[in-house]
C-alpha cells in the first residue's frame, strides 16, 4: 500500500463518522431543497411509517376521546340529575308565577278600562265578575258575583265598555243571574244611530240580535250602529247594542228582516258593570 493510500485509509478511519454524517446531511439538504419540485421519493418509507404510526395515533385519539367522553358523560354529570330535577321544579314554579302575573296584568287592564268607563258615564254603577255561563239551547245567561246583599235588584242594566250586556233577572243573596241581550227572552228598545229610526232589538238565541219593526222604506244600512233608546227605563240612552250586519226583505212585505251583530263579546268578557241607578226614561 502506498503512503498516500495509507494516509487516506487512516483519514477515513479517523473521520468516518464525520464523513458519513456530512454525506447524510447533504442528502437531507438535497431532500429538503427539492421538496417542492414534484420529485416522487420516499414513498415506501412514508407509507411504512404511516402504517406503523397511524394505529398508534388512532389509539391515542381514541383513548383521549374515551377519557374526555367519560369525563363529560359520567364524572361531570354526577349530581346533574338532582340539579336537573331541581331546575325543572324551578321552571314549573316560575312558569306558574309568570302565568299568574300575566293574568294579573290582564285583569288590571280590564279593571282599569272598566273603571275609566264608570268614571266617564253620568250614572252610578258597581263592578261585578262573571262566575258562570249558561249557554243552553236557547238561553243565554250569565251569573255574576254580586247579589241582593250588594244592592242587586231585578231589571238593573248590566253593561260593559263595549256596550249593552243584558239585565239582572234573578238577584240571589250573593250572586245574580243576568239575561244577556242575545237571549230570545230579551228585547231592548233601540234606535239607529245614523237615522234615529226606532225599533226593538231581540235576542235570536244564537249569539246574535234581530232588529224588529223597521219598515221597508226606512233608511237603514249594513254597518249602522244600534243604540239604546232609554224608553223602557232599564238602560240609559245611547249605549251601543250592536251593528247591523244583514238586511233582508221580509215575507210580509211590510217590515225588514235585520240581523244585528252584538257589541258585547261574551267569549272574552270577564268583568261587567251593573248600573245601580234606575228610571232612565228618554226625554225624546
Amino acid at each position, binding site marked *: 500500500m502506498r503512503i498516500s493510500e495509507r494516509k487516506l485509509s487512516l483519514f477515513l478511519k479517523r473521520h468516518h463518522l464525520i464523513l458519513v454524517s456530512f454525506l447524510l446531511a447533504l442528502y437531507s439538504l438535497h431532500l429538503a431543497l427539492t421538496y417542492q419540485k414534484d420529485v416522487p421519493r420516499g414513498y415506501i418509507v412514508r407509507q411504512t411509517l404511516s402504517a406503523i404510526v397511524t394505529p398508534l395515533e388512532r389509539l*391515542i385519539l381514541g383513548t383521549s376521546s374515551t377519557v374526555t367522553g367519560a369525563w363529560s358523560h359520567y364524572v361531570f354529570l354526577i349530581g346533574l340529575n338532582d340539579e336537573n330535577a331541581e331546575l325543572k321544579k324551578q321552571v314549573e314554579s316560575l312558569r306558574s308565577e309568570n302565568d299568574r302575573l300575566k293574568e294579573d296584568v290582564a285583569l288590571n287592564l280590564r279593571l282599569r278600562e272598566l273603571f275609566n268607563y264608570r268614571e266617564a258615564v253620568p250614572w252610578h254603577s258597581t263592578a261585578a265578575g262573571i262566575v258562570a255561563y249558561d249557554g243552553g239551547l236557547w238561553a243565554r245567561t250569565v251569573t255574576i258575583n254580586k247579589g241582593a246583599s250588594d244592592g242587586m235588584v231585578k231589571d238593573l242594566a248590566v253593561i260593559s265598555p263595549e256596550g249593552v250586556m243584558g239585565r239582572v233577572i234573578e238577584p240571589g243573596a250573593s250572586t245574580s243571574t243576568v239575561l244577556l241581550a242575545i237571549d230570545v227572552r230579551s228585547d231592548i228598545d233601540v234606535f239607529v244611530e245614523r237615522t234615529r229610526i226606532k225599533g226593538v232589538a231581540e235576542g235570536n238565541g244564537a249569539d246574535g240580535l234581530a232588529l224588529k219593526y223597521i219598515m221597508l222604506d226606512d233608511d237603514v244600512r249594513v254597518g249602522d250602529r244600534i243604540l239604546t233608546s232609554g224608553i223602557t227605563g232599564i238602560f240609559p240612552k245611547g249605549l251601543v247594542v250592536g251593528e247591523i250586519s244583514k238586511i233582508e226583505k221580509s215575507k210580509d212585505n211590510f217590515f225588514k228582516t235585520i240581523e244585528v251583530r252584538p257589541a258585547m263579546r261574551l267569549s272574552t268578557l270577564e268583568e261587567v258593570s251593573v248600573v245601580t241607578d234606575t228610571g232612565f226614561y228618554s226625554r225624546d
Partner: protein
Amino acid sequence: MIKEILAFIPIALVFMAFKSTLFSVIPLPDIPLLMVFYLAFRRPSVEGAAFAFVLGYMDDVLCGGIIGSTSFAYIVVFMLVHLAGQRLHFTTAFTRSGGAAIAVVLKGALVYAVVSSAGMHVRIFVDVLMQAILTGICAHKAIVLMSRLSARVVTSSFKGDIS
C-alpha cells in the same frame, strides 16, 4: 449499539404520535433531539448518525415538515455535539441542560434556514425558544433514563451472549 437504537425507536414513535395528535399546538420537549444529543456525546457512531437521520425523517413525515429539513438539522446537531463532546464532558445536569437547549436552538435555526431556502416563509422563533427551555429542563432527567435503558439493553444482550 443497534439494540440501543432499536429500543429508542418505539419511544420516538410514541412521542411523535402524541406530538402529531394531542400536543400538536402545545410545545413539548424535543425528545428525539435528546436521543440524538445522547448518542452523539455518549456513543458516537455511524449507526448513531444514521439514527439521527431516520429520526429527523420520521419527524418530517409524521409531523408534516419539509422532508429532509429536520433530518438535516439532526445530523448537523449530531456532528457538532460529537465534536463538542471531544472537548466538553456532558456529565452534569447544567451542561446537559445547556447543551440540549443550545442544540434545540441550533436545530430551529437550521430548519429555519432550510425552510427559508426552500422558498417558504415561517415564523418559528418563539416556538423554538419555548421548546429549548422545555428541552433544557427535561434534558438531564431524560438522559439519565436513556442511560438506564441503554444499560439494561446492553446488560441483557451481554447475558444473552453468555448463555
